[in-house]
């Protein structure tokens, strides 16, 4: 036997796994198409400038190469930015809302020795030209439709708003380098560090308490009901979406006032999918109301992507009765 290696973080899929994976992705595409989302495909390679315009800070493209003219090409690190490019270019005059879906691989860099994938399969939608709160409610509904259809039983959806903590920082007058330091602790999930950085800001006690307490709040709608003042105002957007949801969708939500996502283009509501059978999220999404404007067709938009391989692991885990 001769072993021919493949790059770490990549994988071959053999028929037994492929059959199960295909069942999941076919179901997802069926649900998307039934909801009116048309499937699109974009090249795995894009110009580096295109992704840079999209602000994929947090998940930057990791693989670059040169074409025959010396231009820099990258392997896409997500599908949302390529679809924003596609909409601005191919649908410059099309009526909105535009409903698009995809099943595609994306590519990201990995940290050594962590078993992270360089190449992963995403199934997702982009709903373009549909503002909050209706657009957000529709995306959440399609998300639940897909997860129900593939047979995942115990999933929950973390639901937050990237603008919420920013509004609290605005309210407390925290800006510049101090603001960056506070946000860094939040993004790195360090509440000990968050408390330390807030303590040195010299705010009055109630403002400081708000900045430390609010991002640790998560749970049912009672989390929103318990807010007052600046925090309540900042959570208005979440209320608006919640009010539009069918009970079967609303009951899946975990309101999470400290939720952050790694991609830089999110502007409002964000969500993340959890299942008790897996220690990492299955996917997520959110509103990106500024992204299309950077490509010359300003439109409010929302979308999500599910990691097909993680969805498969969670389904298998649920079947075996695994729970965190």
């Amino acid at each position, binding site marked *: 036997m001769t072993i021919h290696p493949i790059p770490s973080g990549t994988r071959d899929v053999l028929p037994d796994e492929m059959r199960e994976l295909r069942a999941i992705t076919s179901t997802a595409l069926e649900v998307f198409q039934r909801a009116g989302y048309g499937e699109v495909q974009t090249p795995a390679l894009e110009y580096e400038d295109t992704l840079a315009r999209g602000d994929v800070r947090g998940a930057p493209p990791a693989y670059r190469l040169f074409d025959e003219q010396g231009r820099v090409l990258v392997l896409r690190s997500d599908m949302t930015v390529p679809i924003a490019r596609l909409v601005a270019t191919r649908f410059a005059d099309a009526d909105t809302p535009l409903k698009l879906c995809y099943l595609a691989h994306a590519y990201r860099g990995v940290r050594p020795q962590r078993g992270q994938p360089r190449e992963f399969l995403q199934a997702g939608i982009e709903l373009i030209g549909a503002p909050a709160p209706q657009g957000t409610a529709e995306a959440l509904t399609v998300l639940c439709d897909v997860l129900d259809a593939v047979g995942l039983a115990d999933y929950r959806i973390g639901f937050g708003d990237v603008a919420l903590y920013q509004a609290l920082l605005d309210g407390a007058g925290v800006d510049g380098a101090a603001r960056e330091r506070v946000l860094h602790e939040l993004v790195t999930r360090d509440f000990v560090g968050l408390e330390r950085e807030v303590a040195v800001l010299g705010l009055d006690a109630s403002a400081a308490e708000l900045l430390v307490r609010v991002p640790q709040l998560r*749970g049912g709608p009672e989390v929103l009901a318990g807010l007052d003042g600046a925090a309540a105002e900042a959570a208005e957007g979440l209320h608006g979406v919640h009010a539009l949801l069918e009970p079967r969708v609303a009951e899946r939500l975990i309101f999470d006032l400290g939720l952050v996502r790694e991609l830089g283009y999110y502007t409002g509501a964000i969500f993340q999918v959890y299942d008790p059978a897996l*220690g990492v999220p299955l996917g997520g999404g959110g509103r990106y109301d500024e992204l299309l404007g950077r490509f010359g067709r300003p439109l409010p938009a929302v979308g999500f992507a599910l990691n097909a391989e993680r969805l498969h692991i969670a389904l298998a885990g649920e079947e075996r009765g695994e729970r*965190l």
Partner: protein
Amino acid sequence: MSGLTIAVPRGALFKETLDVLDGIGVDTSEVRANDRKLLFRDVGIVTMRPSDVPTYVEAGAADIGITGKDVLMEQSEREVYELLDLGYGACTMVLASVAGDDPMEEARRRLGIMRIATKYPKIAARHFAATGRQAEMVEVKGSVELAPLTGLVDGIVDLTATGTTLRENGLVVREEIVTVTARLIANPVVHKLKAAAIDELLERVRAA
């Protein structure tokens, strides 16, 4: 009690961690009585090396865990929530070299680079980068104090509680890098799905 699986570090933090768990109503008597057993399913405790705690918690094999800030700094890429500074297990990460004329200083001046032995290559490398000095990290697994005495390196970066081991090996502290204590960490998915259980546990630890 809480239905949470807790990763407990064996070693220097072991006893105080069990004291904290006793204080919030977890029965740790079986854990204390049993040196070799690793998994105590009835009380939701798994015991392991401190440096393995983030691995188990990140993957969700344990819901929450306790480990030193030194471990978390060295494994800063782990996706876990850091929820509480437990205050005990205070140690200082120091840069040390043999007593007398500092060999690190001579190496820096004449050779342009210092050789540093450590179990914490990332923390050490960050410290030298942040202070604008060139240093080569030599990762060792056992007693770091041996490395400068045998000429393997010019200095060491290591954790010390009292400084006794350093002194007994003829080493002196040249710089203090950071003070670390025990931290309570949580899996990011568990932090959302079992929010009430985690918050209740946090309340009880804070009150204890």
